[in-house]
C-alpha cells in the first residue's frame, strides 16, 4: 500500500487552514488510490496539535524538538528528506504559502523528486499524478504532468479545497527523533511584526469599495474616495495600490492583507488574482467593474459590469446627488 504525506503547517500554536485543506484533498486521493494518509508534523509541542489532525490521518509522524518552535526551511528540508527516504510516499503535499514556497523547491532539489507548485487540483490518470494549475494570473489553466519518479511533490493553493473534516481515520502516532547531524540553519528567526494594523479595521466594514491597479494613477484614488464619501462605505484596495503607496497597508484585501466580510464588496479595476479573492470569500455580494470581460474576478463575482470604472463611478455619483 502506498502512502500520501501531508506536511502540517502551523504558526504560534495554531494549525493553519491550508493543512486541513491538504488533508481534505489527500483523503480523496488516498481513497481513490487505496493509499494510507500520513500527516507529518514538525514542531516543539505535538500535544497541542495531534488531537486536531489525528482523526484526519491514518498516521501522524511527529518530530518534536525545541529547535522546531519556529519554522525553518532548512530544518524542514533535512527532516523531510529523511522521512521521504524512509517511507517513500507517492505524493507529498505542502502549502503554496510563503513558508511552503521557501522549503518545497529546495526539498525537490535535495530529494531529486519533481515538484509542481500552486496546484488547484490533483488528478490521477493511469496511475500517474497530474495537476491543474492557473497561469497568466488565472486567465488560463494548464494541465501538468511529471517526469516519471518514485514520488512527487506538490504545493497546493490555499482555498482550492474545503477545510471540513472528511473520512474517518484513526491517526496512529509515530514519534521520530530529529536527526542528530542536522546542520545549524543559516537563517534564524527573530520576531513577528504586524504591519496591517492601522487607524481602521476594514474587516469590520459592511460595505467596501475596493480599488485595484485599474485606477491607473494616484490622483484617481480621490475620485473613488469621493464616491465612497457619498455612498457611506469604506475604501479598500488590492496589493499594487499599497505597493505604490497610494493607500496605506491597512486598506489591503487579500492573503497578505486583510480577510473581509462585508455585505457588499464593490471591486473597481481589480483582476481577481487568487491572493486577492482569497480575502473576499466571506463577502455577501461581490460586484465587479472591469474593462476586461475575461478578467478572473468575474468568475467569483455575483454581478459584473464590463466597462470603464470611471464611467461607472461618475454615473453613481450623479445618481446619488440627484
Amino acid at each position: 500500500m502506498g502512502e500520501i504525506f501531508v506536511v502540517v503547517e502551523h504558526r504560534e500554536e495554531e494549525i493553519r487552514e491550508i493543512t486541513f485543506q491538504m488533508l481534505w484533498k489527500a483523503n480523496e486521493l488516498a481513497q481513490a488510490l487505496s493509499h494510507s494518509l500520513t500527516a507529518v508534523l514538525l514542531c516543539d509541542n505535538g500535544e497541542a496539535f495531534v488531537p486536531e489532525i489525528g482523526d484526519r490521518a491514518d498516521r501522524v509522524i511527529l518530530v518534536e524538538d525545541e529547535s522546531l518552535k519556529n519554522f525553518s526551511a532548512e530544518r524542514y528540508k533535512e527532516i523531510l528528506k529523511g522521512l521521504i527516504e524512509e517511507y517513500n510516499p507517492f505524493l507529498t503535499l505542502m502549502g503554496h504559502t510563503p513558508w511552503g514556497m521557501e522549503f518545497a523547491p529546495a526539498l525537490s532539489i535535495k530529494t531529486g523528486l519533481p515538484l509542481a507548485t500552486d496546484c488547484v487540483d490533483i488528478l490521477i490518470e493511469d496511475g500517474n499524478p497530474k495537476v491543474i494549475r492557473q497561469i497568466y494570473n488565472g486567465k488560463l489553466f494548464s494541465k501538468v504532468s511529471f517526469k516519471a519518479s518514485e514520488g512527487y511533490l506538490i504545493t497546493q493553493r490555499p482555498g482550492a479545497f474545503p477545510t471540513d473534516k472528511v473520512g474517518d481515520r484513526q491517526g496512529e502516532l509515530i514519534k521520530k527523533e530529529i536527526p542528530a547531524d542536522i546542520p545549524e540553519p543559516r537563517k534564524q528567526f527573530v520576531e513577528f511584526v504586524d504591519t496591517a494594523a492601522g487607524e481602521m479595521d476594514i474587516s469590520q466594514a459592511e460595505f467596501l469599495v475596493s480599488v485595484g491597479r485599474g485606477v491607473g494613477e494616484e490622483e484617481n484614488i480621490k475620485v473613488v474616495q469621493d464616491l465612497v464619501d457619498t455612498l457611506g462605505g469604506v475604501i479598500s484596495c488590492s496589493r499594487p495600490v499599497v505597493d505604490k503607496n497610494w493607500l496605506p497597508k491597512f486598506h489591503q484585501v487579500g492573503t497578505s492583507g486583510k480577510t473581509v466580510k462585508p455585505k457588499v464588496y464593490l471591486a473597481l479595476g481589480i483582476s481577481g488574482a487568487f491572493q486577492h479573492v482569497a480575502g473576499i470569500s466571506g463577502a455577501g455580494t461581490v460586484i465587479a467593474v472591469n474593462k476586461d470581460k475575461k478578467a478572473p474576478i468575474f468568475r467569483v463575482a455575483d454581478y459584473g459590469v464590463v466597462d470603464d470604472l470611471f464611467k461607472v463611478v461618475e454615473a453613481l455619483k450623479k445618481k446619488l446627488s440627484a
Partner: protein
Amino acid sequence: MNIIVCVKRVPLTQEVDLEIDPSKRDVRSDMLAYVMNEWDNYAIEEAILLKEKLEGTVTAMTIGSEDDEEVLRRCLAMGADKAIRVDPGTLELDSFTISKILAAVIKGLDHDLVLTGVQAEDNNEGAVGIMLAEHLGLAHSAVVVGIEPEGNEATIRVELEGGIDEVSKIGLPAVLSIQTGINEPRYVSIMGIRKAAKKELNVIELGELELSEDDLLTRTTIEEIFLPPETEGAEIIEGDASTIAEEIIRIIKEKGVSI
C-alpha cells in the same frame, strides 16, 4: 557587495484576449506586448539600492532569446553594471531546468547576494529562486520585503499571511526571492536605455556551461492549456451608464446596506 539579479520578460495579459496556439501548450505570442516581470522590477531596484549604499556590482541575468535582451537593457538603464543572457536555443524550460542553467552561470561569478522575483507573471510557479539556492548550496528565503546587510549576514523581513512579517537573520551569501512593494522602482526613460547600450551584455550559449543531459531535462511538462471551465460566474449588468448605476445602487440597498 556583489549582487546577481535574475529577471524575465513576460507578456502583458491584462485586457488581452489570450488565444491558445495550435500546439495547445502555449498562447499565441504574435499579438502580445512584453514587459519585465513585475516582481523582477522590484528585485533589480533593490539590488541597485543596496549597491548605492554598500558599493559593489550588480549583474542582471536572463535566459532567453535576443528579444529578451530588452529587459536586460532596462536593468542596465536602471543602474546594473553588466548583463548576461543565456541562450537556451530550443530547449524546453521549466523551473528545474531554468534554475540549473542559472546556477551553472552563477557558480562562476562573484556573489554575496542573488535576487529573483517571488514568481513570474506568466507561469506563476514561484520556484526558480529557491531551487537555484539549493543547487548553489546557499541560505535562502522567499517573499522578502526587507533586506539590511551587516557584515556577513543580513536582517531580512519575509511577508507572511495577514500582514504579518517575519524578521530573521540570514548568513550571506544568500538567495532571496523579492516581493512587490519592497521599494519604489525607479523610472526608466528611453534616453536612459539608449545610454545604457554601451554597457557590457554577454551572451552565453548552453554548450559553454557545465551541464549534464539530466540537468537539461524538465521535471514537469505542460500537457495542455485551456480556458477556465465555465462556471456560473457573475450576472452581467448591461445598459448605459445610468442604468448600470441604478442597478448597482438597487443591489447595494437590497443587500441591506444603507446608503
